């Protein structure tokens, strides 16, 4: 069984919500569609207050190379364009739409038939994906069309669809694979066509045997070029660099692009969104979201319209449990802590995870006992204990000499540290500072 070679940890699996079918979440009365849905420059609104919009209407254009357009997820009237606090309490430009009915743009194919034949050509596919505002749904929300237009020096050889879902608790990718497996595989075919390659892998961790056998069956029927790869259960298998290492045994060079290895990685959710965009002409305004947690009142998976307030979803699922001390959007290893439940969902929102105080409250930090567990756990081959020490005294040259910029912020070091040292907290800060210095440096 394949896996990545360096480091990694084994957090408890906790896929409690894995058997809950994906339901349609009701549409709230008001949605708040943030312009910062993706990595890069926030989109620029192209609607005005008072405009009527339908489901799928373009409401904001991409503002720059690394950016993506945003579409309305509901039909109704634009009430306001203003700064609304996001889940971290930071203001972000948002289009507020009052919902009236559920009228879709006519161009969207709403039938449930599976369209297998790919009519569009290579360039048209990329253009369609760009226009539909598809972004990576694995967490980083990087605009997909950029990944599909690699620099001329790079030679893509294969597509890897990321079904590892190595974060504990999260089940949205698993449900998509189980219920929309065929669409995901067609998405894989589309991605292959867009890149002009003829090999596609779907990497799935061994803890999802049903998904592996289901997709293997589908692939053997209709998709001979797609190979389902069973991966060992180890975090962070779903990290782009780790997944490429695991599946095709190639390492992304430091500071290089993943496509330097020939592989283009897309998440399962993204592949599904690509299918919908290309075959159904449906822009990305809906995503799959898991509501889970040991103390959660419900274990469910939903299709949510982008811009639905988190509190609306929480209420629909029986409210925020009394024991919940921390609410995380995303997985427990890399997700973001929510401070503002009124904040809306984004394209990349994958979960509302309730953690209890006992699970999440950090312990008092004690002396480093130099056990080297962080060094063994680091999937990038760094020395977290040393980076932490250097970071606390701000030795930027030394931090750079120890490759702090390689850190992928997976949290393995801090997860495993027996002295409860907040290693990643300091390393993340040092990394940002060092990267700033490196960028400011004149290029040779």
């Amino acid at each position, binding site marked *: 069984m394949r896996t990545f070679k360096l480091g990694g940890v084994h957090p408890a699996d906790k896929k409690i919500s894995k058997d809950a079918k994906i339901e349609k979440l009701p549409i709230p009365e008001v949605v708040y569609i943030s312009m910062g849905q993706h990595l890069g420059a926030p989109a620029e609104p192209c609607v005005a207050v008072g405009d009527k919009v339908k489901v799928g209407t373009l409401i904001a254009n991409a503002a720059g190379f690394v950016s993506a357009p945003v579409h309305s997820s509901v039909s109704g009237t634009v009430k306001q364009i203003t700064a609304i606090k996001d889940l*971290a*309490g*930071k*203001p972000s430009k948002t289009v507020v739409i009052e919902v009236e009915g559920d009228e879709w743009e006519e161009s969207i194919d709403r039938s449930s038939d599976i369209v297998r034949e790919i009519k569009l050509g290579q360039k048209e596919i990329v253009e369609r994906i760009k226009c539909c505002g598809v972004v990576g749904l694995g967490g980083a929300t990087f605009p997909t069309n950029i990944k599909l237009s690699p620099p001329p020096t790079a030679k893509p050889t294969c597509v890897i669809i990321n079904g590892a879902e190595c974060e504990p608790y999260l089940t949205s990718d698993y449900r998509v694979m189980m219920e929309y497996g065929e669409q995901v595989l067609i998405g894989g075919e589309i991605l292959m066509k867009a890149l002009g390659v003829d090999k596609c892998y779907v990497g799935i961790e061994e803890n999802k045997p049903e998904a592996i056998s289901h997709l293997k069956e589908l692939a053997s029927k209709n998709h001979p070029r797609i190979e389902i790869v069973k991966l060992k259960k180890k975090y962070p298998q779903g990290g782009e660099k780790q997944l490429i290492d695991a599946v095709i045994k190639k390492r992304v060079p430091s500071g290089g692009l993943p496509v330097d290895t020939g592989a283009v990685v897309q998440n399962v959710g993204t592949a599904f969104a690509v299918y919908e965009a290309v075959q159904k002409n449906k822009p990305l305004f809906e995503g799959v979201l898991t509501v889970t947690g040991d103390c959660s009142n419900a274990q469910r998976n939903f299709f949510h319209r982008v811009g639905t307030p988190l509190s609306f979803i929480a209420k629909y699922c029986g409210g925020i449990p009394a024991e919940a001390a*921390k609410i995380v959007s995303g997985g427990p290893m890399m997700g973001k802590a929510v*401070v503002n439940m009124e904040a809306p969902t984004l394209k990349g929102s994958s979960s509302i995870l309730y953690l209890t105080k006992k699970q999440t409250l950090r312990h008092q930090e004690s002396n480093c006992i130099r056990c080297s567990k962080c060094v063994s756990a680091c999937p990038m081959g760094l020395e977290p204990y040393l980076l932490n020490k250097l970071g606390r005294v701000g030795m930027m040259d030394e931090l750079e000499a120890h490759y702090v910029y390689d850190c992928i912020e997976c949290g393995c070091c801090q997860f495993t540290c027996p002295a409860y040292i907040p290693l990643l*907290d300091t390393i*993340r800060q040092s990394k940002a500072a060092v990267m700033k210095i490196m960028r400011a440096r004149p290029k040779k």
Partner: protein
Amino acid sequence: MSNIIIFTIATLAILGLLLAIVLYIIAQKFKVEEDPRIDEVEAIMPGANCGGCGLAGCRAFAECAVKEGLSSIYCPVGGNDTMQKVAQTLGLTVEQKAPQVAVVRCSGTCDKRKKTSVYDGLATCSTIASLYGGDTDCSFGCLGRGDCEAVCQFDAIKVNPQTGIAEVDEEKCTACGACVKACPKLIIELRNKGPKGRRVYVACSNKDKGAVARKACLAACIGCSKCAKECAFEAITAENNLAYIDFNKCKMCRKCVIACPTGAIHETNMPPRPAPKPAAQPVAKPVAEEKVNMLNN
């Protein structure tokens, strides 16, 4: 017996002589020619090596002063006295600068600004600032984790555990500007110290709309511009829902302090006010006095 003593002394003497010669030759060979005035200037410098002048330390300052003159550099720690002495040594003239002091533009103490979440990560302001707005609803104010305290070499700025806000000890503050750079919320400003340490400033950095700011913090500047209207010297500008007092124009009439509905404008080291005129607002006055007492303590 005496032989041993003589030989010992002779051996030591010869060794000493040889080593001295070697040292002398090396010292001559690797001698670095340097302007002697650099040493002289360095001796005048405060020797804090704080970097407040923007250079790497006092030695670097001295080198720069000797090479390029004093027009572009200033030592905030030594102040005008030191600059005058340096100028004399180098035969230059130097402009007098008003002494400055660091000012924390936040008055959201724990009782005025309620905590709305529990922060559980690494206790530095920069970590919090990069993660989220902060553990109160005000995303502009002091985070109280002491990044400024950590960089201050003069023990002049400290987070008061009672109020959760950084406070400057103006006796110790040298206006080196280290805290200004360290604060991720950019709420620390270098302001003129003022005659007898008298200053009037807006102790708030919140750029939210009035209602939002007020909801987050009782002491927030709500951008109502009352102070700007009150000011006879056009020293106050209110932009982005936040008032700012230009210390070069302020004549310290203190009318704005009384006018401010939330008490966000602070005054320091001011003499007690004359008996209230009947026109003055009776409610606002005690608040201002209370503040004077608090700051004097």
